[in-house]
């Protein structure tokens, strides 16, 4: 039963990841990424990690993907223009290199687990235990993360704030100059 669930959601996961690569429009890629994240949440449930599964759905599939989709809609991002200048060398060297990397990564990860026949699953990680671990053993990293999030919020506000008038004038002048040259 668990094995069947694993294979079904692993197939959905890989399918979503490949669809992310295949789609031309970013919004389709974003939606297939949501599919990948939701099926990963099921895999976490199979591994007995209920807390991580819930956080995965709420934070990843909820918050982060909403941010992505907002930005895609805000920037009115259209289809990727077909880049005509993909070099032949990049394809000839890159694709085999990617294949080699894939084989090596799968080998490294599965060889790591090859020795032990230990079976994953069923060990529950109740939120109480995780909370005790998080607020006792990992208290310092937890506080550091809160500072990190604060800095990230301030950085995002500064970066996304409207341009100052004199900067905007400079950019407009630069764009006009480019237009004049070409």
């Amino acid at each position, binding site marked *: 039963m*668990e094995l069947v669930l*694993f294979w079904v959601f*692993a197939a959905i*996961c*890989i399918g979503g*990841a*490949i669809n*992310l*690569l295949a789609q031309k429009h*970013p919004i389709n*890629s*974003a939606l297939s*990424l949501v599919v990948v*994240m939701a099926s990963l949440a099921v*895999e*976490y449930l*199979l*591994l007995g*990690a209920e*807390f*991580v599964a819930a*956080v*995965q759905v709420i*934070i990843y599939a909820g918050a982060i993907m909403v*941010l*992505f989709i907002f*930005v*895609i809609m*805000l920037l009115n*991002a259209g289809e*990727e*223009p077909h880049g005509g*200048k993909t070099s032949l060398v990049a394809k000839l060297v890159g694709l085999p290199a990617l294949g080699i*990397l*894939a084989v090596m990564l*799968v080998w490294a*990860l*599965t060889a*790591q687990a*090859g020795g*032990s026949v230990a*079976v*994953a*699953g*069923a*060990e529950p*990680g109740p939120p109480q*235990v*995780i909370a005790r*671990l*998080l607020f006792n053993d*990992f208290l310092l990293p937890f506080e550091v*993360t809160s500072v990190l*999030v604060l800095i*990230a919020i301030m950085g*995002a506000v500064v*970066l*996304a704030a409207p*341009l100052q008038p004199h900067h905007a004038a400079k*950019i407009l002048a630069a764009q006009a100059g480019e237009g004049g040259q070409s």
Partner: protein
Amino acid sequence: MVPISYYLGLSAALFICGIAGFLLKRNIITIFMSIELMLNAVNLSFVAFAAQLHNLAGQVFVFFVMVVAAAEAAVGLAIIIAVYRTRNTLNVDQVDLLKL
């Protein structure tokens, strides 16, 4: 019961998809989504090892990875907005100068 190597194989496959997207795609938002895909793949192997070793520290680490990913997404998307505002393009091939 699922052997842990299956989970690790799935994690590796997702990571490879993320690398391929990072290298092949030309839209900066899609490249960013590929990075999120790679982070998810790593999270899956964290949780798998946590289940195998009966050590919940792995799940706590997944929590930290998610927080860092959220911070990274916020800052990265703000940078994308700033780039789009000054250059009017999302194609990474056209964003190749530090100077305007």
